[in-house]
């Protein structure tokens, strides 16, 4: 039986709540468990799952626990829930004698030299907290999304007045002096500075640079809306200026979707007048010729390759040609391998938004129409993201999937379950995945993916293709992830683009009907 209980004024972040729910579901006799802050959206989700929330009076700052179990189990399971919230079972036993401050002011009295606030609060409170941080002279990394455009503009205007940087909103990755904030891979420090509107875009470029033996000193996020004309590129320009001033940086890289025209002008002018090498990767744009002081790239790997060659004082054009050559080989191989597989379609199942975007772009070039839940064009949007058609790319990090669910980079289980469904569909020939390692990501992301792969009940195919976005230094142990996937028969490639080229080429020859 499904029951709920409200705990007024008790706040826990969504990750904690979901991890506790996971623990409760392990208890024998518990059919379902869900813990949420009682926002309208969450109450709807609970109502949809038949939890009795109709007569509940609760505010978004109240905790609501829903459990599906027998009546006599209810008290003990509820007790367990409360215990887990206070003493999370997944945390180490060590008794924390530290006092954790409860406010920014309290934190400043503990760490007066603080220079950055990393804010991952619910969107409706994030802006006020960010504003406070700026007022106290701190730079801000705003991981939270659901911050309004208006709030973003006010924050960035305030930051500009104070010579501070706002990274975000919705900024999940940054690197400062080689230290990773949020989701980031372990990379060495080097003479490169990156400004990025995208989290996994930044991760991919850093990982590719690392493969080429080049380190990055700073990778600054700007959030996806910074280059809109209403925001005016405030953070992008501030970040570029700061990288220009850093004597240890010789190449500045800008990554994101194409900026609005006025902002683009300011950005490119700034890059070109930096006195340093500059490389831009405005994804989705067709190829442009290089300009004095600024080189254009169309993909994340190419961006890294060009940057690396500039660092080494080599000719970037030569490096590009080697890359195109590699890509052609991958495509050829793909067509060959795909010939014998039954099924007709490519399904991309992604955890990183930009990785999905880049891969879908590649697939589009080779296959024509590619559908998705965050597609390149509006007309290609899937009516039901859980029911892909023909060639489709699904980004499981999109909002529709992360209400009441952990981000797929943190918890691969939902994507793994979808993988099984897609792979058992006889019309699917190839399944393409990204596996993102590094801080913030799951401890063993390949494990659940491989479990799903091994459980598939199908005679011929599909072909599994994956790209592991990670470095040797990452906590997940890169080699172990590769091994796990290889043993399961997954085709592995050294970059997101290569994996996409291979996967798309593998279905390129197949009839859609």
């Amino acid at each position, binding site marked *: 039986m499904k029951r709920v209980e409200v705990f007024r004024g008790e706040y826990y972040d969504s*990750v904690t709540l979901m991890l506790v729910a996971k623990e409760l579901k392990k208890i024998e006799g518990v059919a379902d468990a869900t813990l949420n802050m009682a926002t309208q959206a969450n109450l709807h989700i609970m109502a949809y799952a038949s939890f009795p929330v109709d007569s509940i009076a609760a505010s978004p700052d109240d905790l609501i626990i829903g459990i599906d179990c027998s009546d006599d189990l209810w008290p003990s399971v509820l007790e367990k829930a409360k215990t887990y919230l206070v003493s999370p079972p997944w945390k180490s036993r060590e008794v924390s004698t530290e006092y954790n401050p409860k406010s920014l002011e309290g934190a400043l009295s503990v*760490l007066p030299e603080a220079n*950055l606030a990393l804010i991952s609060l619910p969107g409706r409170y994030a802006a*006020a907290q960010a504003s406070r941080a700026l*007022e106290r002279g701190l730079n801000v990394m705003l991981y939270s999304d659901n911050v309004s455009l208006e709030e973003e503009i006010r924050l960035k205007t305030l930051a500009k007045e104070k010579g501070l940087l706002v990274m975000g909103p919705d900024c999940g990755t940054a690197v400062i002096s080689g*230290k990773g904030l949020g989701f980031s891979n372990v990379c060495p420090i080097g003479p490169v500075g990156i400004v990025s509107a995208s989290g996994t875009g930044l991760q991919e470029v850093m990982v590719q640079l690392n493969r080429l033996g080049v380190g990055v000193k700073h990778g600054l996020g700007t959030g996806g809306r910074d280059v809109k004309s209403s925001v005016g590129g405030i953070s992008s320009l501030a970040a570029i200026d700061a990288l220009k001033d*850093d004597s240890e940086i010789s190449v500045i890289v800008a990554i994101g979707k194409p900026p609005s025209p006025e902002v683009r002008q300011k950005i490119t002018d700034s890059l070109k007048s930096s006195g340093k090498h500059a490389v831009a990767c405005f994804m989705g744009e067709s190829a442009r010729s290089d300009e004095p002081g600024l080189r254009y790239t169309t993909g994340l790997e190419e961006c890294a390759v060009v940057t690396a060659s500039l660092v080494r004082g080599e000719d970037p054009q030569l490096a590009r040609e080697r890359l195109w050559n590699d890509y052609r080989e991958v495509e050829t191989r793909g067509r060959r391998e795909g010939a014998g597989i039954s099924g007709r379609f490519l399904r991309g199942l992604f955890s990183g938004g930009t990785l999905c975007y880049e891969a879908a772009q590649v697939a589009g070039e080779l296959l024509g129409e590619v559908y998705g839940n965050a597609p390149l064009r509006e007309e290609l949007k899937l009516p039901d993201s859980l029911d892909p058609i023909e060639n489709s790319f699904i980004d499981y990090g999109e909002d529709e999937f992360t209400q009441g669910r952990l981000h797929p980079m943190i918890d691969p289980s939902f994507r793994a379950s979808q993988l099984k469904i897609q792979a058992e569909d006889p019309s699917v020939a190839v399944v393409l995945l990204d596996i993102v390692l590094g801080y913030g990501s799951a401890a063993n992301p390949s494990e659940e993916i491989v479990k799903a792969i091994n459980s598939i009940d199908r005679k011929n195919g599909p072909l599994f293709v994956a790209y592991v976005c990670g470095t040797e230094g990452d906590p997940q142990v890169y080699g172990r992830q590769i091994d796990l996937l290889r043993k399961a028969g997954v085709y592995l490639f050294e970059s997101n683009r290569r994996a996409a080229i291979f996967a798309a080429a593998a279905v390129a020859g197949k009839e859609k009907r």
Partner: protein
Amino acid sequence: MSLKSLLNNGPKVINIGMERFYSDLREQEVETVMVDWKPPLGGKELLGKLRKIRGDSVG
């Protein structure tokens, strides 16, 4: 503090929100503090009113 000093001195972080970011920073030996944040009483509306009378423009 400024952006410049952040980039010169390395990050010293106040983490407000998800605990995993704090532990990852600790692992990289970054000086960091974890804030056990709670929502303001009376919700966003009351907070907004109070900030307004102080002349704070955001939130």
